[in-house]
């Protein structure tokens, strides 16, 4: 049976992860490679590395980091943050990333999705959508959530699939950082309409939230950053809990 995936996200700033607490057996939790290896040991199914500064200089550094990560870890990983062109994608794929995550650039230029899919295959194109429920509509935001667009989330997700996206990373800005649980409603709606896998993101605070999003929506994976990073939830424990709850999880 195909398993539901647990995906830790590592926020990268100038080649480093923000230092977490409660880490055992890690020499340097600020080193993304050390942290990634620790997540792999805990049983993470996939990893996402997001360059949150995303300047041109940092993108070059990100490719170097991707190369180190690819040499050290043996599970799939996605790299993202400030990707604007086919060349940016090419650099990251050549460095060893399995997938790239694209957000604002794809909203501004839908063709970019098709260009990447044609050259590298749909499987490597993850379209990240930041969504917020405002004035009774789930709308798309870009520029790290700073800029509103006129796009409805459902319409954009459908368009991204048509253009050749292999997967959607759906982050609810309403719940992101609140630890109050994933936004079940929009996740359910997007997974119902799309035929490609959807990663739910934003709002994970306790283990029950993962159970809720896996049982109440058709999402294929759930992503979280801080609760893993700060050791509030251990991935091993989370997976044991979900297996006990009858959810298909890789042990």
């Amino acid at each position, binding site marked *: 049976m195909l398993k539901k995936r647990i995906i830790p996200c590592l926020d990268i700033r100038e080649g480093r992860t923000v230092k977490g607490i409660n880490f055992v057996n890690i020499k340097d939790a600020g080193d993304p490679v050390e942290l990634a290896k620790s997540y792999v040991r805990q049983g993470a199914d996939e990893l996402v590395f997001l360059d949150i500064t995303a300047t041109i200089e940092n993108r070059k550094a990100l490719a170097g980091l991707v190369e180190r990560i690819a040499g050290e870890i*043996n599970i799939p990983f996605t790299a993202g943050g400030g990707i604007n062109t086919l060349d940016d994608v090419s650099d990251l794929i050549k460095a060893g990333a399995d997938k790239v995550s694209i957000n604002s650039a794809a909203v501004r230029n839908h063709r970019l999705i098709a260009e990447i899919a044609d050259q590298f*295959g749909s499987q490597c194109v993850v379209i990240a959508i930041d969504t917020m429920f405002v004035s009774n509509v789930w709308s798309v935001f870009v520029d790290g959530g700073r800029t509103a667009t006129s796009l409805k989330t459902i319409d954009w997700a459908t368009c991204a699939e048509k253009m050749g996206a292999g997967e959607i990373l759906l982050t609810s800005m309403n719940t992101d950082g609140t630890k109050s649980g994933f936004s079940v409603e929009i996740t359910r709606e997007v997974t119902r309409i799309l035929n490609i896998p959807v990663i739910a993101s934003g709002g994970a605070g306790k283990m029950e939230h993962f159970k809720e999003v896996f049982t109440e929506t058709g999402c294929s994976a759930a992503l979280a950053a801080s609760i893993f990073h700060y050791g509030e939830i251990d991935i091993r424990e989370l997976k044991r809990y979900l297996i006990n709850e009858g959810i298909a999880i890789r042990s």
Partner: protein
Amino acid sequence: MIAIIKYNAGNIRSVQNGVSRLGHKSVITDDKNEILKADKVIFPGVGEASSAMNYLKERELDHLIASLKQPVLGICLGLQLMCSYSEEGNTGGLKIFDTVVRMFPQTDKVPHMGWNNFSSVKGDLFNGISIEEDVYYVHSYYAEISSQTTAVCNYILPFSAAMQNGNFFGTQFHPEKSAETGARILNNFLQL
């Protein structure tokens, strides 16, 4: 020396990293002589079937691969191109495996992406591997089951997770991305 056949697309670097983590030297190449004299050959690939096959034909690697006598491992698109035919781009294959490659019916999410286990395994690649173990897949097309199928996975329908015909092996999943289980399968191949 392990030869990893060079393609025009995809993440071949991962395969080389996987081989190197198991302590083997490898070279990514489309040079005929280098491929012929390698101890083992890995034929990886993510990408589109017809353009990958054209790339092989332009370099006359299609006949070369089918004629190899050393152990050969096709991964993902590699396995699919070793079959007789693929619906993807209406592509004729290398005819090493006696089966055809079809697109998944869209009765569930496609691509089949993520970790899945087996309903059966046999053969040298799966020494010490149990059917409960999960490996990583990402594909929209699948090889139908035949007498050369050595592992079966169920997603939408049962399909060939792995195949073998003599010295030719193929896996639909990515052993280089399948954590410890994948490393053991890749190691089984490298130990042949």
